[in-house]
């Protein structure tokens, strides 16, 4: 019974997990490029965003096809509609990782010694995305809730680094202003990635419970 439907759902499952992995890798690589000042790697992330966008279109097409052909209800409906929503957030995460890489590439940016802890934000953001996807794969409501709670940590890091940047900018003698502003952009993108990962986790909770966490 419903063999083809199950096959389509399995395919959808694999596609969204693949997209999640693509996003995790994009953030990790962008962070590495930033930390090490690796322009080649930064270029790879920027170029790779097209594949994430294509993946978004493929998953979206499959979701719409399932809505049309199967008129899903109950857990199927929650799953497909959640994926449609998660998709948008994952695509934005991909964009923001590429934006970070773009800043690195364009400005030949390498994280100054003093700001090495910015990469903590990258690690935290990757962790959130990775766990949101893991929560989806394992139907793990607790993990989804944990991801949502972790957004505060990323927000705190953002506020902390923002203050440091502001202080340095006030002291700056027209030498490092551009770097500081670029870094400010970078931390804002990390902070946004945390927000999108939170959204993904909220949709995982909806798929599992029928209510957003």
């Amino acid at each position: 019974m419903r063999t083809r439907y199950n096959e389509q759902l399995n395919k959808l499952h694999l596609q969204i997990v693949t997209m999640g992995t693509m996003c995790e890798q994009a953030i990790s690589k962008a962070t590495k490029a930033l930390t090490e000042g690796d322009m080649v790697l930064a270029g790879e992330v920027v170029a790779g965003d097209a594949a994430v966008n294509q993946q978004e279109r493929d998953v979206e097409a499959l979701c719409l096809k399932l809505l049309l052909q199967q008129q899903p209800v109950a857990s199927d409906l929650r799953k497909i509609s959640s994926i449609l929503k998660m998709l948008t957030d994952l695509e934005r995460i991909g964009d923001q990782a590429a934006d970070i890489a773009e800043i690195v590439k364009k400005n030949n940016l390498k994280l100054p010694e003093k700001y090495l802890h910015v990469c903590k934000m990258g690690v935290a953001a990757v962790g959130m995305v990775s766990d949101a996807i893991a929560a989806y794969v394992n139907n793990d409501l607790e993990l989804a809730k944990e991801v949502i709670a972790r957004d505060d940590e990323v927000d705190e890091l953002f506020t902390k680094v923002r203050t440091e940047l502001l202080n340095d900018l006030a002291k700056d003698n027209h030498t490092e202003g551009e770097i500081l502003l670029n870094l400010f952009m970078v931390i804002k993108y990390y902070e946004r990635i945390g927000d999108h990962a939170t959204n993904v986790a909220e949709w995982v909770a909806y798929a599992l419970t029928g209510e957003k966490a």
Partner: protein
Amino acid sequence: MDNKIKFEMKDVNLYYGDFHALKNVNLAVPEKEITAFIGPSGCGKSTLLKSLNRMNDLVEGCKITGDFLLDGEDIYDKRMDINKLRKRVGMVFQKPNPFPMSIYDNIAYGPRTHGIKNKTELDGIVEEALKNAAIWDECKDRLKKSALGMSGGQQQRLCIARALAVQPEILLMDEPTSALDPISTSKIEDLAIELKEKYTIVIVTHNMQQATRISDQTAFFLLGEVVEMNQTEKLFSMPQDKRTEDYITGRFG
């Protein structure tokens, strides 16, 4: 579910001979809302529907226990006048079944049975019933023509008009659109939603999407039991019982 309870079934059991067709059914049908019964074939939903206006009385070997309270009054009470009950609780069947007579006479049949003879009064009833069933414009110029010449969708709306002509309180619909094309189906669904302003509707349907489109609450039947009853939106988005989930998602049934 804020409306008052129009029909209440308490501990209902129904047997066809040795076959236990309905098992301890407890259900409440709110007034002026649409209640859908869903479930696989043979699960008892049509049996329960027919019990609501005592159509099972005609089935040999049918035994019913429990209470069927219409406005608090037991319809299986000895003092209940079955003709009056069926006037209050009308029924529309799966296959349109117009009488082999004119459109006008189909509608006038019920009121005449209940003693209305005056032509002007009957004319008014026929027009109103056909208007309420959203078919007046299509048949007002051929009221004297045979109802059998109408399309399936028109015939079904005629049957609804016929049921409405005796001014019932409840309309029972047993898969009313399963023999109709999508356009006729859509007309009947729109009509059902309009009719709930005045009437309480109970509909048996195999079409899940139809239940989600028109009903306020849905009861899922399986093997003679009501597995789950809830607001339709909740039942179809977050069913509480695994059997409901498995049925509505097509994992069995």
